[in-house]
């Protein structure tokens, strides 16, 4: 791990808006070249603020951030040349066609026209928008617009791509399709990706490593599996045909922790790695002359990890946010 090239280096990064709102409270992390790194946390945790600082559109209050080896505060132009960002909002111009939007981006990076056209068609093909390329963006669906946003961000062949909530507000199928594109990107273009999300499934399925961020602080960094291992591993439930208490026998298996008898013949235990331990358990039980009639295994989810680390469920948080928005809307409507 130590040999890997660090492409984003963040140390004690802090942002205070207008001297009052402490959005990011001194975070530190490294992102290695070629990985998909996720910032996971509820709305308002400081994810977008962090991305805005790393993409040079917002000045940090204090701390250091280096992207591609350049300090974002001291050499913003060099940083901008090596990165690209897909903001949360749809930023493409609705009055222009998909292709024109691509060319607009190309000229912002100073890419010569012939080269830009070549790249534009290649990228539009990659995100399956070739047929819609000459239609105005206002006719695109949400998923198409998100794909166009991603293609637009790749026109400058960035080394680092920032995705701010890449699937916010998309339906389940479209979300899965976007995930596919993001994985393809990483494979085909050798891009390092930093994304923010408040969807557990997204962080779990896409990211090599995740930083859980809450109230402007990083609570924990690790791979999805490492984070889940924090919970003490997988949960195995087993039922046997016999009525004898086998708690003793089970707890003597080295990899098994915390055996709990649920009823006369059912036991629940925590194990480090379910796939490896389950066969051992079955074997031990059979050797003692008992019969297994049912075995089930549950992997811990990031949801549970989040709950463990922050004391709150991300889903509650999400719901709370939605309720808050609803209340705001109602309040505005009543005026």
């Amino acid at each position, binding site marked *: 791990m130590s040999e890997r090239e660090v492409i984003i280096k963040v140390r004690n990064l802090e942002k205070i808006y207008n001297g009052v709102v402490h959005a990011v409270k001194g975070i530190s992390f490294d992102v290695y070249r070629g990985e998909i790194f996720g910032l996971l946390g509820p709305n308002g945790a400081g994810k977008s603020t962090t991305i*805005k600082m790393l993409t040079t559109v917002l000045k940090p209050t204090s701390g250091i951030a280096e992207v591609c080896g350049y300090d974002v505060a001291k050499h913003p132009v060099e940083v901008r040349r090596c990165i*690209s960002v897909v903001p949360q*909002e749809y930023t493409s111009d609705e*009055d222009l066609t998909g292709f024109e939007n691509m060319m607009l981006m190309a*000229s*912002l990076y100073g*890419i010569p026209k012939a*080269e830009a056209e070549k790249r534009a068609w290649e990228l539009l093909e990659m995100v399956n928008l070739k047929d819609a390329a000459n239609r105005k963006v206002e006719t695109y669906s949400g998923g198409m617009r998100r794909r166009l946003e991603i293609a637009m961000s790749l026109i400058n062949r960035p080394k680092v791509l920032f995705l701010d909530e890449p699937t916010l507000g998309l339906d389940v199928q479209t979300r899965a399709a976007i995930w596919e594109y993001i994985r393809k990107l990483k494979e085909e273009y050798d891009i390092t990706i930093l994304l923010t999300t408040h969807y557990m499934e997204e962080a779990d399925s896409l990211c090599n490593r995740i930083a859980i961020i809450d109230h402007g602080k990083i609570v924990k960094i690790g791979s999805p599996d490492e984070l889940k291992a924090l919970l003490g591993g997988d949960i195995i439930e087993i039922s046997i045909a016999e009525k004898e208490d086998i708690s003793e026998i089970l707890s003597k298996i080295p990899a098994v922790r915390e055996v709990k008898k649920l009823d006369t013949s059912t036991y629940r235990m925590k194990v480090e790695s379910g796939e490896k331990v389950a066969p051992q358990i079955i074997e031990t039980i059979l050797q003692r002359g008992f019969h297994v009639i049912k075995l089930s295994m549950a992997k811990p989810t990031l949801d549970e990890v989040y709950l463990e680390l922050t004391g709150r469920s991300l889903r509650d948080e999400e719901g709370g946010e939605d309720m808050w928005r609803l209340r705001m809307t109602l309040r505005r409507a009543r005026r």
Partner: protein
Amino acid sequence: MSRTAGYNNPLHGLGALLHRELAQWYRDFVVLFISLIQPVIWLGLFGKAFDLSKLFTTNANLPPAYQQLAQQTMLNIFGTTSYYAFFAAGMLSFIAITTAVFGSMSIVWDRRLGFLERILSTPVSRGVIIMTKVFSATIRTLIQVAVILIFAVALGFPTTYLTPLRILGTFAAVALLSMSLASLLILLGIRTTNYQRPMVVANLITLPLMFTSNAMYPIKLMPGWLQIVAKVNPVTYTTDIVRILLLNVNNGTGNLFIDFTILLGFAIVASAIGIVTSWRYLTM
């Protein structure tokens, strides 16, 4: 390498952003049509309705000497016997004001729609982003000016002095005014997501800018304190130039060189303020 060639040009991206800005205008027929017809309607309604010379000449029974006196008074005050012609010249400045004011709102929308965040993360210079807004306002203004001039002539604006050189000078003066105002007004929009902020300021300053200049009424008839205000108002110098060039009327400084120098000074200072401020404060 060809890839880095574009980066070395400090103005790269200006053309593309300007095209985007103007496309939003000319590709929407309704927006284009109304923005071109609006000043013409103003010109027709105001210029023709407030024909001040009629104050003296409506009564046909007046002796010819009185009529002559009336003509003389008009000439003394407005430099022309036609208030319509006097007002039409002022209208050109008015267009620069309204277009600059509405231009300042577009950057608020760019911010709200996320487009600003995207371009701020590209190597495009912050100055270029502001210049795009300023130039787009200026180009729109000049096209509107051309349309007004055509309609003004159709409605009776004297054509005696309409030579290519004089028309070119008129365009130059309006362009400088437009650049000055757009550079300053854009500052209202660079830090806010509230599109109402530029709007209320626009409402606040549009008419005062007109009334504290010679666009509608000659300065020499204004109270002393207002004359001072009028003399620091760039609209005054623009209108002055337009009247000298297109009507050969002299009721301001009467000196093209002084007028142009002052106007150019305004434009340089305002653009510098706009660009430097955006460099410092144009962030998310």
